[in-house]
C-alpha cells in the first residue's frame, strides 16, 4: 500500500479508499447512484446548500453540541482529562440527525418525493422519520423484527412521527437484513425514492457523503478544544458499528499526527465467543451492501450474524474508510464487551448524571481502560453520540430488574 501523505483525500473518483469501498450494486441502482453522486457534488459546490444546512443544524438540531469536561469521571479514573462531545443533546438524541438533515435537503434538491431508510437501534430511523415529518415527505423505515422487539420506544417514536415501520423477517432479522430490504425497496421504486443510508457504508458516494455530514462533530470539537484548552486534543475515542459518529469525529483530525485515535467495536460476549460485532478484529475483507470492507463471514463467504447488546452496533460490516484507516494504521481499533459497556453505562450515570446510549457506552469502556494510564495533561475526547433513554428496557433486563 502507498503511504499516503494525507489521510483526508479519499475516496478516489471510483469511490475507493485504498482497496475498500466501490459501487457493488445491481445495475438497476447504478444510474441512481451516479445521479446521487452528481447531485451531491453540485450541492457541495453551492454555498446556499451549506447555508441552508447550517441554519437547520443551528435552529432545529441544536448545534453546536457542547464539549463537556467530565470532571468527576476524570477524578474517578485518575489520569487523562476527559471531555465528552455531547451529540446526545441533539434533537432526537443522537448524532444521526446531522446526516439525515443533510440527506433530506439533498433529496429535496433532487425532487425526490419519498424517503426510505434502514435502522438498527432505531436512532437513524427516528432521525429519518423526524426530518421526513419536518419536510412533509412520506417515509418508510425498514427494521429487523429482532430489533423492533428490543427497541420498542424508538419504534413507537417513529410511528408517532408519521413513518411506516416495516418489520423485516428475513435472515437474522437485524440491521443487515433491514438494509437488504431497503435496497429491495429502492430497486423497485426507482423514480421517486431517496434512500437515506444511516452510516458511512453502502455504495459510493454514501460513505463519503455521510462522513461529510457527520464531520461537523469533529470540526466543532477542534474549535471548542482550542477555545477551552488552547490546543488540539491528544486522543479521540468513539464507538463503531457502521462507524458514522466515529468518522465524523475522526476525519477532521486524521492529518494531525499527534492526535491518537481509537475506534471501539462491539465485542459482544467476547471476541473468542464468536458472538460479537467486531468486523475489523474478527472479520476479513469482503463485499456486501455496495462496498468492499471487513465483514464477519464464514469460510464460504456467507455473512455471519453479529451480536451486540447494542442494536446500533449489531452489524457484521464497517464503513470502508474505517477498513482503510485500520490497514494504514492511522486509527487504532479496539473492542469492548457487552459487560464492559454495561459497567461503563452505570458509571457515567452515577458520576456525571448522564445516561449514555449503549453504543457510546462501548467507547466509554475503552476510556475507562485508557485514561488511568495517561498523565493529567492528556486531553481525551470521547464522542457521546447518543442518549440512553431508548436502552432502559435492555439495561433493566441485563441487570436482572423489571421496570
Amino acid at each position: 500500500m502507498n503511504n499516503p501523505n494525507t489521510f483526508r483525500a479519499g475516496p478516489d473518483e471510483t469511490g475507493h479508499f485504498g482497496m475498500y469501498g466501490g459501487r457493488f450494486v445491481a445495475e438497476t441502482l447504478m444510474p441512481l447512484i451516479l445521479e446521487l453522486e452528481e447531485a451531491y457534488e453540485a450541492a457541495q459546490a453551492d454555498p446556499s446548500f451549506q447555508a441552508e444546512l447550517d441554519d437547520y443544524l443551528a435552529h432545529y438540531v441544536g448545534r453546536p453540541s457542547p464539549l463537556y469536561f467530565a470532571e468527576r469521571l476524570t477524578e474517578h479514573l485518575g489520569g487523562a482529562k476527559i471531555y465528552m462531545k455531547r451529540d446526545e443533546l441533539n434533537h432526537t438524541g443522537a448524532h444521526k440527525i446531522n446526516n439525515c438533515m443533510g440527506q433530506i435537503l439533498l433529496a429535496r434538491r433532487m425532487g425526490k418525493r419519498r424517503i426510505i431508510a434502514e435502522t438498527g437501534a432505531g436512532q437513524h430511523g427516528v432521525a429519518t422519520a423526524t426530518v421526513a415529518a419536518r419536510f412533509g415527505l412520506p417515509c418508510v423505515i425498514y427494521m429487523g423484527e429482532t430489533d423492533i422487539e428490543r427497541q420498542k420506544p424508538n419504534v413507537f417514536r417513529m410511528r408517532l412521527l408519521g413513518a411506516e415501520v416495516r418489520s423485516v423477517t428475513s435472515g437474522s432479522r437485524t440491521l443487515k437484513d433491514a438494509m437488504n430490504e431497503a435496497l429491495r425497496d429502492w430497486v423497485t421504486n426507482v423514480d421517486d425514492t431517496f434512500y437515506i443510508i444511516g452510516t458511512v457504508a453502502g455504495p459510493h458516494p454514501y460513505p463519503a457523503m455521510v462522513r461529510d455530514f457527520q464531520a461537523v462533530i469533529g470540526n466543532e470539537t477542534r474549535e471548542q478544544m482550542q477555545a477551552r484548552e488552547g490546543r488540539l486534543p491528544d486522543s479521540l475515542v468513539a464507538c463503531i458499528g457502521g462507524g458514522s459518529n466515529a468518522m465524523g469525529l475522526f476525519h477532521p483530525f486524521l492529518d494531525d499526527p499527534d492526535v491518537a485515535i481509537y475506534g471501539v467495536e462491539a465485542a459482544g460476549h467476547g471476541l473468542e465467543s464468536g458472538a460479537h460485532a467486531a468486523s475489523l478484529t474478527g472479520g476479513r475483507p469482503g463485499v456486501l451492501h455496495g462496498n468492499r470492507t471487513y465483514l464477519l463471514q464464514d469460510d464460504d463467504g456467507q455473512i455471519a450474524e453479529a451480536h451486540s447488546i447494542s442494536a446500533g452496533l449489531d452489524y457484521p460490516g464497517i464503513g470502508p474508510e474505517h477498513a482503510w484507516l485500520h490497514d494504514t494504521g492511522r486509527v487504532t481499533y479496539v473492542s469492548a464487551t457487552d459487560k464492559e459497556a454495561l459497567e461503563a453505562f452505570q458509571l457515567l450515570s452515577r458520576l456525571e448524571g448522564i445516561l449514555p446510549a449503549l453504543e457510546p457506552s462501548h467507547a466509554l469502556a475503552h476510556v475507562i481502560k485508557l485514561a488511568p494510564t495517561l498523565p493529567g495533561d492528556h486531553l481525551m475526547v470521547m464522542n457521546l453520540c447518543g442518549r440512553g433513554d431508548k436502552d432502559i428496557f435492555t439495561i433493566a433486563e441485563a441487570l436482572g430488574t423489571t421496570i
Partner: protein
Amino acid sequence: MSETRIERRFAALKAEGRAGLVTFVTAGDPDHATSAALLKGLPAAGADLIEMGMPFTDPMADGPAIQASNLRALKSGATLRRTLDLVRDFRAGDDDTPIVLMGYFNPIYSYGVEAFLDAARTAGVDGLIVVDLPPEEDNELCIPALRAGLNFIRLATPTTDEKRLPRVLTNTSGFLYYVSIAGITGAAAPDSGKVAARIAEIRRHTDLPIGVGFGIRSAEQAAAIARFADAAVVGSALVEKFANGATAEAGLKALLGLVAELADGVRGARTDKRAVAGE
C-alpha cells in the same frame, strides 16, 4: 476464441427459428441430492439453458421465493464448492446444455477470483451473472472471467438508458439479460408491449442474443416474451412450485411439469407468423 456452449446454443436456437427457455434453480435447494436430480431432469423437460443460483445469505436483488430457497440451500450445507460439484456431476451426463451461475460477489471473492474461475471452467460452467458487479467494477471479475474463457452475462434494466447502455454492453458476452421490471425477482409481471419496444431499441446497439426475465410465471407470459426475445428466463415461479411440493419428490415433479409447460409456450410462440421478430 472458441465458442462457448452458450454461444452454440443460441446459434442453434436461431437456426431453429425459436426462442429458448432459461430455467433458474438454486444450487443445493433443498439439499444436494435433490438438486442434482433436478438439474439432470431440466434439459429433458425442455430447458435450453440452465441458470443456477449460488446460495448467499444476503440476496439483495431477490424476492421472498428465491431468498427462502437460498436459506434452505445454505441450511442443508450448500457452499460454492458444492455448487461446482453439482455442475461437474451434471456435465458427466450432458455436455451440451449451457450452465450459467448466478449470484452475488462475496462467495466468489472469498473463494478467490482466479481459483474460482479455474474451478468453474474445469467443472463445466459456461457463464456467470453476478448481480452486484456493475460495469464500474469490471476489473473485479468480468475481465478475468472473459480471459478465462467464460461468458460474463450482464443485466440491463429499465433504468439503463440509451446513454448508459453501451457501457453495459461493453464486455458483456454470451447473451444480454434484460430485467423486464425495476424490482426484485418474482415481483410484478412485465408489460410485454413495453418490454418488446425496449428490446427493439437495445437491438440497435448489439447483436448479442437477449434473454428477458423477472416476473415471468406462466406459459402464456413466457410465450409473449418469446415472440420477440431470444430467451425467456423463469426463476421464482419454478422455485415456488418446487417449495410448495409436499415432498421433495412431489416438488421436483411439479417443477419439471411447469418447465415442460413453459417450454411448450416458448416453442409455440412464433408459429403465429405475425409475431416473428425477423427484421
